[in-house]
């Protein structure tokens, strides 16, 4: 989907402002928002692509008007509401009003270290050969899916070169909708600065994205 989250190359007036000795969290509510989001993944049963879509699928003013962990919170509420794990009257009231929905598993303190260490690898066994090889020239397709995608706008329609073949990985465009993992070949695709940004760009600049095969066509 098109959204304010897709920020590459968007003009932005303010400089990047590093914060010396920045703490991991800036307030107690950020700690708790982070933790409940992480912990709800297991009983909630959604995947990372569904989480990302729940965060980014909102109007630009809404997305840009929230801080990072406020967006996480809004995404978490959306995922839970969609699945009936909580109801909107409960969120408004700030307390439980309905019985819990049965969930398969919750995250216990004993499992935290192992679950984090295991993570969620996305590489899958390939069932067909890769269409592209290192060095091939490709064009990123001009697509505007209304659903989740990880092909950023700033590379669409541009010609790049396959730099690495990264294996077959879960395809977010499918996984985010609940249509299954549909693993696809994944490539690091490199573009020059002038190709993406025009003649005025630094000729010594190269930018890559990691792009799944359905995003690409031979050039």
């Amino acid at each position, binding site marked *: 989907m098109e959204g304010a989250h897709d920020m590459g190359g968007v003009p932005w007036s303010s400089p990047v402002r590093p914060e010396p000795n920045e703490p991991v969290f800036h307030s107690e509510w950020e700690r708790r928002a982070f933790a409940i989001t992480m912990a709800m993944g297991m009983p909630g049963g959604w995947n990372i692509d569904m989480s990302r879509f729940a965060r980014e699928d909102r109007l630009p003013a809404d997305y840009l008007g929230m801080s990072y962990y406020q967006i996480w919170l809004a995404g978490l509420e959306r995922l839970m509401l969609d699945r009936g794990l909580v109801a909107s009257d409960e969120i408004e009231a700030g307390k439980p009003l309905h019985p819990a929905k049965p969930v398969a598993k919750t995250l216990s303190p004993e499992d935290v270290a192992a679950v*984090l260490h295991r993570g969620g690898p996305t590489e899958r066994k390939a069932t067909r050969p890769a269409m592209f090889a290192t060095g091939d020239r490709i064009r990123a397709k001009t697509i505007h899916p209304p659903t989740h995608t990880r092909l950023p706008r700033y590379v669409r329609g541009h010609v790049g070169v396959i730099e690495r073949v990264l294996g077959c990985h879960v395809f977010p465009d499918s996984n985010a909708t609940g249509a299954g993992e549909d693993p696809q070949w994944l490539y690091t695709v490199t573009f020059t600065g002038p190709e993406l940004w025009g003649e005025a760009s630094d000729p010594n600049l190269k930018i890559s994205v990691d792009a799944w095969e359905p995003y690409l066509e031979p050039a």
Partner: protein
Amino acid sequence: MSDHDHHHDHDHSDLSETELRVRALETILAEKGYVEPAALDLLIETYETKVGPRNGARVVARAWADPAYRVRLLRDATPAIAELGYAGRQGEHIVAVANTPRLHNMVVCTLCSCYPWPVLGLPPVWYKSAPYRSKAVKDPRGVLRDFGFELPEGTEVRVWDSTAEIRYLVLPMRPSGTEGWSEERLAELVTRDSMIGTGLPKQPHEVA
């Protein structure tokens, strides 16, 4: 940090409303039996005290000290990093990219905030901010100036936009004047930003 409040203005507006909302939500989830408060505490403790850029600094220091390790790291970073015990969430597939005198690497996630957690911890606010996410892919030298340094003219700048589940770790150049240093001492030179590509390692005199 005197201008802290201007860094991310909406982080601090309606804070009390958000604070109350999060507290209430946690209560609802705990009472429904979906989350265990002790597990929440452990998640927070893990990322505040255990998983952070000191992990990545150990990886870089080893690559500086041990040429065979450097080769393994650049060939297939995930198992090389796992040798030091770091693996998992948001670092399932890691690629390490080396800076050279002619090449400077920088990592960004223009679409959200993808970042190699097992080696760097959770990302700083600036990494997740609109200015960084928009500017890094178009004007990385301008970003570096925001961080207070200028790359030599002619250096190739290579930006890695983390649009999939591959996470990138920059292997900065080992500062000169560190011959014979132990891995522990070398790790002191490795800053978080040098592993993202928005900074350089410290010089020996800065840690003396």
